[in-house]
């Protein structure tokens, strides 16, 4: 397919891998301390697994799958709020499909739907706005979710709702912002990251400047990367090249999409409709200052949290889950105690197992082949433990 296959060319991949290997040989790496590069965005995680990129890389490089999957970092309490809103008798609750299966403390939206709540899958917030127009006697709530990538479309939908005078529409805002979270990860004492692949789609909106502190203050190279497999390999090469050269800069591999200064009309809309929350709860990472946005006062009539009463309870992550450590790269997905046994895509405990962009689900679905035997081994081990106990 034109404009896609060009970025999946195995010959070019081979050439790039050769160059990557040459660079890696120049970097001093020990077995105890492999080179850790974090891809911040879940879209990258998905591509890495879908194309089997991890196994093509030299062993000395370890990819750490970062927090950039908005579905994965959604805390249980917020899912409970969604369910409460959806179960409101007069509400049509609209959501992107991948949020349907995220477990709350009692149920997911999918289960709420089966129990009779009017939950509908939409592909865009404008679809939800249209539903509101078609159902004037109902209240339509849109589950707004995602980083700066999806924020503009939500913002423009609110502006459109106001323009058209639509009153029975509101959003349950769970938009989050990536920069404070990357900073929080960099500040946590147990991390060993050497460089970053920056999120291409977020950068398309915010540009490259917001990442500069990572290069300047933390001395880590960051390359804003595209999502096709060759994009990812080239970006990895660029990060390694910086390490070899002793540089730490923000570079842009995804120039065909990402302008350095970002997208101003989109940023204007975001600034108009949203304002920063003092803090926002992330699954596995806890509360992070200024990491989420709410609907600004000027548009509060479109804020579902103002329009309806939501329980707004903080629910602790399941104890067995080690999502936070996986997100920070401290442990690998399969090193989590419940990976593949109590927690699987069919019965996800942790959110990283829910979305196809979540590191655990990606490992489980697409994972390295020896993982199958690992799961078997662990099941046998656990069965033995039960018998012995």
């Amino acid at each position, binding site marked *: *397919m034109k404009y*896609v296959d060009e970025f*999946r060319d*195995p010959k070019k*991949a*081979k050439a790039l891998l050769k160059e990557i290997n040459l660079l890696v040989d120049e970097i001093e790496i020990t077995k105890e301390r492999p080179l850790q590069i974090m891809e911040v965005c879940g879209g990258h995680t998905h591509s890495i*697994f*879908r*194309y*089997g*990129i*991890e*196994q*093509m890389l030299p062993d000395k490089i370890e990819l750490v799958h970062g927090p950039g999957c908005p579905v994965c970092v959604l805390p249980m309490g917020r899912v409970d709020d969604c369910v409460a809103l959806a179960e409101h008798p007069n509400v049509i609750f609209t959501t992107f499909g991948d949020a349907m*299966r995220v477990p709350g403390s009692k149920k997911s939206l*999918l289960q709420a739907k089966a129990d009779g709540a009017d939950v509908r899958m939409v*592909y865009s917030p404008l*679809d939800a706005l249209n539903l509101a127009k078609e159902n004037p006697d109902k209240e339509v709530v849109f589950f707004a979710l995602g980083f700066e990538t999806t924020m503009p479309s939500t913002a423009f939908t609110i502006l459109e709702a106001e323009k058209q005078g639509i009153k029975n529409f509101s959003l349950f805002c769970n938009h989050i912002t990536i920069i404070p979270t990357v900073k929080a990860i960099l500040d946590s004492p147990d991390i060993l990251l050497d460089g970053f692949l920056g999120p291409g789609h977020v950068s398309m909106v915010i540009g490259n400047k917001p990442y500069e502190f990572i290069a300047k203050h933390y001395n880590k190279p960051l390359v804003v990367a595209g999502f096709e*497999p060759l994009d990812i390999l080239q970006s990895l090469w660029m990060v390694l090249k910086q390490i070899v050269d002793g540089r730490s800069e923000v570079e842009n591999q995804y120039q065909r999409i990402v302008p350095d200064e970002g997208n101003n009309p989109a940023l204007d809309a975001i600034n108009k409709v949203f304002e920063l929350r003092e803090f926002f709860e992330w699954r596995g990472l806890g509360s992070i200052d200024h990491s989420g946005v709410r609907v600004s006062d000027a548009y509060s009539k479109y804020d579902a949290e103002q329009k309806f009463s939501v329980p707004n309870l903080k629910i602790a992550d399941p104890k067995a889950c080690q999502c936070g450590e996986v997100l920070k790269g401290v442990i690998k997905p399969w090193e989590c105690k419940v990976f593949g046994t109590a927690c699987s*895509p*069919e019965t996800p405990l942790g959110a990283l197992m829910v979305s*196809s962009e979540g590191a655990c689900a990606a490992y*489980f*679905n*697409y*994972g390295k*082949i*020896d*993982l*199958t*035997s690992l799961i078997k081994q662990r099941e046998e081990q656990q069965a033995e433990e039960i018998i012995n106990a």
Partner: protein
Amino acid sequence: MSAAAKDIEQKGDIRRRSGKVRGDIVTLAHGSGGKAMRDLIDDIFVSTFANEHLSTLEDQARIHLDKFNSNGDRIAMTTDSYVVDPLFFPGGNIGSLAVNGTVNDLAVGGAKPTALTCGMIIEEGFSIETLRRVVTEMKQAADFAGVSIVTGDTKVVHRGAADKLFINTAGIGVIPKSYDLTATKIQEGDVIITNGYLGDHGAAIVDARGELAIENTINSDCQALNHLIQSMLETCPNIRCIRDATRGGIATVLNEFAQQANLCLRLHEDKLRVRDEVKGMCEILGLDPLYLANEGKLVACVPADQADALIKVMQKDPAGKDAVIVGNVSASPEGVVVLSTVFGGDRIVDMLVGEQLPRIC
């Protein structure tokens, strides 16, 4: 005969006369067991399906054993319900789907399909004209596949108790003595064959629902596979197993194969045929064509030395013109489907969790 007796006989004639359906929509009366139902059955089902079994209007079809005995030594039996939304979509409709789907379920077991049943659950208010269209489509599909629809049932339910129209078809067929298709027969070294482009049906349904405002021209691959499979088995009677890759796509079928045979089934992404339109839709929606539904695609494991001959035979049949070898079977890792990606990496292709898309068939 007295005048009164004559009058009664005349009125009886009028009453008995095979009726025409009155009105434009199906009402609860059409499912009540009374005259309206009789008219509906006569006018729409019996006259369209027109065969000796159905016209006798007994409570059951009676098929002579000779019809089975002469063709094989086992009867294959299957049933499937069809709830696709929308009822009509590019390349097919619920009627053709209900016939082809059940015919294919028989055929992939090596059976020659003999007869189908037709059970319909109709929502009150459904258009008679549309019902007639669906039944006509069923008849055409049955004729093409060479099966008769020999008995049926109609129920009408209150508005909202069902969505428009649901169809159940059951089918029976005969399996010739020499065929024994089963996944446990798959051996190391076998190759995997499909009869063409993957994911067309799933993509066509998404497209037809119009939720995405994508302008597209994807046609469902809805087709009967029994003639194709018959010629495949005539060429190579020791094909290990065949299955039609409907819901859950080729990935699901291959996982079933891999687990039953306890072998590794490896797909080569560069050999898989996926249309650009389907690929494009998958890119936009984050779907995987390996999991998209097909309604006229088979997956077969065959001995490697007969694969080329089989492909040639398949390509002569319109249903198999795009047949291609897509993978091979190796010993390990056991019970797993692996995809060698176009990019040069390997990944596991697992069973589908949850549903990719609802009500596609």
